[in-house]
C-alpha cells in the first residue's frame, strides 16, 4: 500500500470542503453573476443540486471497487492498456488543474496585496510547503486541514456577518429576472468546482470506514454549496451587478466592512481564507497527482515523485497563461466544460462500462 495513513469521516468531510471551496470563494461569484446577473444565487443553488449526481457517481464507482483508487480501477474497467492511458490522462489533468490553482493563488496575492513581488515566489513557497506535506502523507494533510478549516469558516462567517449593515437585499430582486438559460449557464462554473468532489475517489480507500463515503460526499457538498450561496448572495446584495465585473468580489465585500469606524480593514481575513485554503487545496491535488502517478507506474513508494511533480507544477503554473485575463478566461469559459468533462462525463462512462461488464463487487 502506498499510503499508510487512515483518515476518519470527519477529516474527510473537512478536507473535501476545503479542497472544493478554497479557490471558489473569491472569484467564482463574479463568473456566475456575469451570466445570471442578480439571479446568481439561484445558479449557485442549482449548481449544488446538480453536483449531487456527480457525488453519487463517484461514490458508486468506488463502492464497486473497494480498496482501489480512481486511477487503479480504471485499469480494471477499461483493461490494462486503455486503463493506463486514461489513468495517465487523469494524472495530467490533476497536475494541470493543480497548476491553475497555484497560478490563481499567486495571482490573487499579487493583485491584492503584494504588488511588486515576483509571482514565482508564491508559487515556490506554496509548492515547497505542499511537497513537505505530501511526503508526510494524507493523514498529516487531513490533520493540518482540521486546524485550518475552522479558521477559514470563521473568517467567512465573520465577513458576511460584519457586512450586514451594507447589505441591501433589494439588489437581489426581482427574482428570476434573468432567463433560465442564463441561470443554467451561470451554474456551470460552480458546478465544475463542485465536481471536484471526484478527487474524493482517490482517497476513499484510505478512509477508516469507506462505506461512509456517500455521507461524506453529500455532507461536504451541502456545506460547500451553502457557503458559496451566502458568499454569492452577500456579494450581490452589497455590490449589485457590479460583482460581474470584479476580479475578486469577496475581497471587495470584506474591504467595505466598517462598523462604527472601529472595525474596518478586514482584508487580512481574506488572506487567512486564501492562504490556508489555497495551501490545503493545492497540496491535496498535488498529493493525488503524486499518488495517482505512483499507482499508475506501480511504484513501491510515491516519495521519489514528490519533487519532480512539484517542479513540474511550479513551471506549469507560470506556463498556463500569460496574464491574469487569460487565467480568468480559462476559468470562466473553458474550465466549466473541461472540468465537467473529466470530473463528471468520463466517470459516468466508466460507471456505465463497469455495470455493463458486471465488474466489481456485486451489490447485495
Amino acid at each position: 500500500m502506498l499510503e499508510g495513513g487512515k483518515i476518519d469521516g470527519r477529516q474527510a468531510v473537512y478536507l473535501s470542503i476545503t479542497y472544493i471551496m478554497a479557490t471558489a470563494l473569491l472569484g467564482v461569484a463574479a463568473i456566475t453573476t456575469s451570466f445570471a446577473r442578480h439571479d446568481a444565487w439561484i445558479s449557485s443553488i442549482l449548481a449544488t443540486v446538480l453536483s449531487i449526481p456527480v457525488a453519487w457517481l463517484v461514490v458508486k464507482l468506488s463502492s464497486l471497487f473497494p480498496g482501489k483508487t480512481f486511477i487503479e480501477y480504471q485499469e480494471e474497467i477499461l483493461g490494462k492498456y486503455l486503463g493506463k492511458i486514461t489513468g495517465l490522462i487523469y494524472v495530467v489533468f490533476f497536475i494541470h488543474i493543480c497548476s491553475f490553482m497555484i497560478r490563481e493563488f499567486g495571482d490573487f496575492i499579487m493583485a491584492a496585496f503584494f504588488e511588486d513581488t515576483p509571482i514565482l515566489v508564491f508559487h515556490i513557497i506554496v509548492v515547497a510547503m505542499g511537497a513537505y506535506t505530501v511526503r508526510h502523507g494524507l493523514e498529516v494533510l487531513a490533520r493540518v486541514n482540521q486546524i485550518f478549516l475552522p479558521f477559514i469558516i470563521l473568517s467567512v462567517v465573520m465577513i458576511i456577518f460584519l457586512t450586514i449593515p451594507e447589505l441591501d437585499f433589494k439588489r437581489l430582486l426581482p427574482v428570476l429576472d434573468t432567463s433560465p438559460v442564463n441561470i443554467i449557464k451561470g451554474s456551470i462554473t460552480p458546478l465544475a468546482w463542485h465536481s471536484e468532489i471526484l478527487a474524493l475517489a482517490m482517497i476513499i480507500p484510505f478512509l477508516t470506514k469507506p462505506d461512509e463515503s456517500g455521507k461524506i460526499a453529500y455532507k461536504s457538498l451541502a456545506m460547500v454549496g451553502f457557503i458559496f450561496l451566502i458568499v454569492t448572495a452577500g456579494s450581490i446584495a452589497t455590490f449589485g451587478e457590479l460583482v460581474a465585473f470584479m476580479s475578486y468580489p469577496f475581497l471587495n465585500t470584506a474591504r467595505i466592512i466598517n462598523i462604527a469606524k472601529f472595525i474596518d480593514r478586514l482584508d487580512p481575513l481574506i488572506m487567512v481564507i486564501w492562504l490556508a485554503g489555497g495551501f490545503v487545496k493545492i497540496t491535496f491535488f498535488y498529493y493525488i497527482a503524486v499518488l495517482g502517478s505512483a499507482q499508475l507506474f506501480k511504484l513501491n513508494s510515491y516519495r521519489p515523485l514528490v519533487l519532480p511533480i512539484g517542479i513540474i507544477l511550479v513551471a506549469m503554473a507560470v506556463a498556463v497563461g500569460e496574464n491574469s485575463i487569460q487565467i480568468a478566461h480559462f476559468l470562466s469559459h473553458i474550465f466549466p466544460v473541461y472540468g465537467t468533462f473529466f470530473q463528471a462525463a468520463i466517470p459516468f462512462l466508466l460507471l456505465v462500462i463497469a455495470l455493463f461488464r458486471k465488474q466489481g463487487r456485486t451489490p447485495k
Partner: protein
Amino acid sequence: MTKKLVCLLLILLCIFQSGCWDRRELNELAIVLAAGVDSTPEGNIELTVQIVRPRAFGGGAEKPGGQPKENNVWVVSQEGRSILDAQRLLEKKVSREMYWGHNVIAILGEDIARDGVSKVTNFFSRSPRVRETIWMFVAQGRAETVLNSHSQLEITSAQAAGFMIRAGTGIPVMLKDLKMMLASQTTHAVLPCIGLTPSGSPQGVGMKENIAEARGKQEDSTQVHAEVTICGTGAFKGDKLVGWLDISETRGLLWLTDQMEKGVITVPSTEDPDRQISIDLVRANTEVEPFWDGENLWFDVKIEMDGTLLEQQSMEDLTNPQIYRTIEENVSRAIERRARQCLEKAQYQFEADILRFGEAFHIKYKGEWAQIKDRWDEIFATADVNIFIDARIRQTGLETKRALGE
C-alpha cells in the same frame, strides 16, 4: 548538531519572511488623505493630492505663543495623461512613495464631471491601493481649489468633509455607490457638491485662505476663514454632470431616496406667520411604489417621519390637539415642497432618474421593464408622482406649552 543547524536556518529565515519587494515602512510613505481630479485645457487630467506632513501631526498639542501654525497637509498638483501617470510624475516632487490606503475623499472637478466622470473613476476602483469606501464629491469649480484648504476642527479638510458627509448633511456617496449608480441601466448618478465658503474668522496666524473674499486684500487675508462646505448635489446624466441641486432640493432628494437621517424642519407658526417652529427629525422612512397601466406611469411615494419639537418662537398652545395636528400637517407640506422641488428638477430639467425610481419599477414590473428600460428617461420625465406624508411630532422636549409672556 543537525537540530541546531535547522534552528539556526529557521531563525535566519525570519529575516527574509518580512518580504523584500513589498515592504512598506511608515517613514517612507507619503500618506494621501484626499485626491482631486481636474481637467486641463489640453485634455489631460490634473491630480491634486493632500499629503500628510508627519511632523505637523506628530506635535500633538499646539505650540503656544501665537507662533504661525503650520498646515498639517501638503497640497500638491501634477498634470498627467492619466491619474496613475500623474501620480508617477508627482513622485518626482514627492520624496516618498504615495500610499492611498488612508485616502478619505476624492473630489472630481466640475470640468471633468461635465466631460464624463467614467474617464477618471476607474483608477480608484481598479487599483487595490484605493479603498472602495472613500467618499466621492464633485466640486463647484476646481477640485484643486477645494483641496487647498484647512479645517478648524479636524486635522485636515479632507477629514472634515468625510465627517460632514457621514453626518447626513448631503447625499452620502461612496466610491462603490457611485460605481453602482453609473452601472445602473435606469438610475443616474448623484454626487454631493463641495466648495469653500467664508466661515468665521481664522484661528491661526499666517494661514492662507483660498477664497475670493479673502484674496487680493493683503491686510484682510486673515480676516475670513474658508472652510470646506457641502453645498448641494451634482446631478449626472450618464457619466456627465448636468446640473446642481441646491441644499433644499438635496433635502428633497434625501427624502425621496429614503436616505434622510438627520435634519430640522422649520415651519411657520399657526398663529403668527413671522414666527417659526422647528422640528428635529428623529427617524424617517420612505417607500416608493410604481404603477404602470401600459401607457401611463405614476408613483406613490409614502413618507413617514417622526420628530421632536425643539423650538417654538410663537406662543400657541401645544396641548390643543387641533393646533398640534395643524403643525404636523405644516411639517408634511414643508417636506412635500422640498420633495417637489427636487422632483421638478429631476423630471423636467435633467430628465434623469436620480431618484432610483427605475429600480422600484424593475422590481415590481420585471416583465414590462425589459420593453421600456431603453426609454426610461422619457417615461420617467412624464410620470406623475403622488406624495403622501405622515409627519408625527412624538416629543416636545423639556416643555409642554409655553408660559404666557415668558
